């Protein structure tokens, strides 16, 4: 095909005529007129693979579905980017993905909390020694600046996953510790609670009952210590040290990408039912960690972005597909470690991963606001 630089291809997208140079993808052509097409396995700068099927649009002229990320706009195409039929196919693909997806978008404790506090996030911030952020997370998610824990029956603790192992986390004490810290430090005043309409209405993937061996996956990274009760007057609550030790018992049951996950966002947008195509048996949840990188294979949608990134950036080891068909998995060749596989590209891979499959766990603990601001009690 002779390429004439001045040549312009005209097609229509949702009825609007669009002129683009030859070779332009439908996705790019649509963006020139401000039409958004959802994607998951696409990232600008990488070769499109058309693997995830979420960007399927319809070419009415040929009456076929085509992947917008990879298909090029051709003269005479009449593209529709969204209608009931297209929504149905996208929803189908998403529902299939969820039939093979194991994870909890939100932790059981948070789902039980009547105030909707993002408990694992608050706890994570505590473990990270970032009390200021812990205060923010608490007040923002609770949607109010008043302490709801003081009058609560601790429903969260009844739901806490750690309870199945030894004893639930002492969530109430931990949250109250942060509340009081927020009030005393004045940080609480600078936080705007999120409007309640923003909370609680999102799609939630849940694992259901745990399978054999799954609790152990969660326990791998938590402190093995037993539940800590405040040594002083219970009314006075935890000391700094106690709070921190108790916080490190948390299993981090929620998904690290709950807010940014594109799979979840699309599930919201397409009204996905998690169990539309129930599997005969769901896979076993795994959590693999190495130097701050968390990989949860059962959340991977095999989009291939991480593989393409490690390959493109010439990682010595990199990530690769292992196996084929339903059993295909993303893994590190030769049983290497995650951090070796992504020696220079970890941040890029985690950022590109559309789901919570690749994420950063707690960064290395750094002495910061906890000690600096915590003149409270020792």
């Amino acid at each position, binding site marked *: 095909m002779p390429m004439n630089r001045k040549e312009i291809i005209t097609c229509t997208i949702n009825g609007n005529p669009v002129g683009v140079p030859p070779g332009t993808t439908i996705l790019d052509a649509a963006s020139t007129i401000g039409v958004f097409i959802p994607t998951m396995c696409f990232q600008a700068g990488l070769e499109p693979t*058309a693997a995830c099927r979420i960007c399927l649009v319809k070419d009415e002229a040929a009456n076929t579905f085509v992947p917008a990320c990879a298909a090029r706009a051709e003269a005479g195409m009449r593209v529709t980017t969204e209608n009931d039929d297209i929504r149905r*196919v996208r929803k*189908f693909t998403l529902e299939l*993905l969820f039939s*093979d997806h194991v994870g909890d978008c939100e932790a059981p404790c948070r789902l039980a909390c009547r105030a909707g506090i993002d408990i694992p996030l608050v706890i994570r911030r505590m473990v990270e020694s970032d009390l200021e952020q812990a205060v923010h997370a608490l007040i923002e998610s609770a949607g109010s600046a008043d302490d709801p824990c003081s009058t609560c029956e601790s429903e969260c603790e009844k739901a806490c996953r750690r309870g199945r192992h030894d004893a639930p986390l002492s969530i109430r004490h931990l949250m109250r510790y942060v509340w009081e810290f927020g009030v005393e430090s004045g940080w609480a005043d600078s936080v705007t609670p999120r409007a309640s309409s923003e909370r609680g209405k999102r799609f939630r993937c849940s694992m259901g009952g745990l399978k054999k061996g799954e609790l152990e996956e969660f326990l791998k990274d938590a402190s093995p210590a037993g539940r800590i009760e405040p040594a002083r007057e219970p009314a006075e609550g935890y000391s700094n040290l106690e709070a921190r030790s108790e916080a490190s018992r948390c299993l981090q049951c929620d998904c690290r990408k709950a807010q940014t996950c594109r799979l979840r966002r699309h599930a919201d947008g397409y009204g996905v039912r998690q169990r539309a195509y129930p*599997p005969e048996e769901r896979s076993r949840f795994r959590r693999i960690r190495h130097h701050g990188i968390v990989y949860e294979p059962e959340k991977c949608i*095999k989009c291939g972005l991480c593989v393409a990134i490690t390959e493109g950036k010439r990682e010595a080891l990199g990530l690769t597909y292992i196996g084929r*068909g339903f059993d*295909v998995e993303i893994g590190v060749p030769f049983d290497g470690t995650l951090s070796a596989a992504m020696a220079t590209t970890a941040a890029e891979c985690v950022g590109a991963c559309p789901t919570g499959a690749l994420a950063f766990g707690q960064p290395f603990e750094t002495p910061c606001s906890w000690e600096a601001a915590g003149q409270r009690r020792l």
Partner: protein
Amino acid sequence: MNGDEGDPGAFMDRMILESHPYRVLEGLTIAAFALGARSGVLYIRAEYPLAIERMRAAMARMKTKNLLGENILGTEFSLDVRIVEGGGAFVCGEETALLASVEGVRGMPRVRPPFPAERGLWGRPTLINNVETYACVPWILRHGAAAFAALGTRRSKGMKVFSLVGKVLRGGLVEVPMGTTLREVVERIGGGVAPGRVFKAVQIGGPSGGCIPAALADTPIDYESLAEAGAMMGSGGLVVLDDSDCMVDMALYFLRFTQEESCGKCPPCRIGTKRLREILERLCAGRGGLADLVRLEDLSQQVKEASLCGLGKTAPNPVLTTLRYFRDEYEAHAAGRCPAKKCAALVRYSISDACMGCTICAQRCPAGAIEMRPYEQHAIDSSACVRCGTCREVCPVAAVHLEDLRCP
């Protein structure tokens, strides 16, 4: 050249490669000459060692005669041909996956367009055709296109090789002009089914094809008629089924094959075929229900629509066609019965009072499910029985019967 013949029971390409290597190489050379290509690749599955050996020998002889290599027959035209052995993945029969495999990367299909003719091997324009196609080229050049077009039907020209297998008296490779009816192939060429059996259907086109019932046996074999019936020519596998074959079991057989051979790139095929397989397995095990039929149909349709490559787009065909023509069998399975008495979980063996107590069945039963009671009527412990059928075969008085487990 695409010689990655992967359909179960298909061996047309193998026969051509083993028996007529020169014809294929001649066709390939002519095609290269027409296009001005300087290199050719024969992609042959490694499971065909004899085909590879014979092609190698043929290439070596052609080189010594200057029919391949530099300046063929003293002309400007040079062609370098090499063999690449396929690693045994069915999906590498898909042309873009095949090209990836030749390049040494994972054999996963990519989206078309661009078609290989525009951007193929190593990013260069590539002509890729099947063994049979190249093998036809020399004949066409020698006899002229009109002679070839005179064979077959108006829209499907020429001849087609089928691998006729299954419940026919004379199986094997057959070559027929397009437009021949299925009945002619099965009855006249294949000699029909065994005496006492009833011809039920043919599965045409391998795991991507579909099932055509005996009632439609007068369908002519051409691309359009087969597509209309929900099947396809595919590589040319033709499995004849009789009344002892269960259609649900058959659909499961082919689906299991494609599910295991899916490359895993796109969710509709990777996960969809798995879910389809689970539902079929449920039905064959007697754990299904009528709702499963609706699920099968819905999943099949959407997997076809949403999959990336031909493998996923055609994988549900055996399910859809059997559902279309043999829905009653599916309904029977949903109720826990296998009309063909094929699905092991839905049938049981039992011994009637014709039994004379010879103990042969008890001696031969591999599962120890029959207690030895000389001169008495024997009985089968259904929970221990593995449904191997041995007892029925060895019983000298035909006292062993197959019956429905649920409603005897």
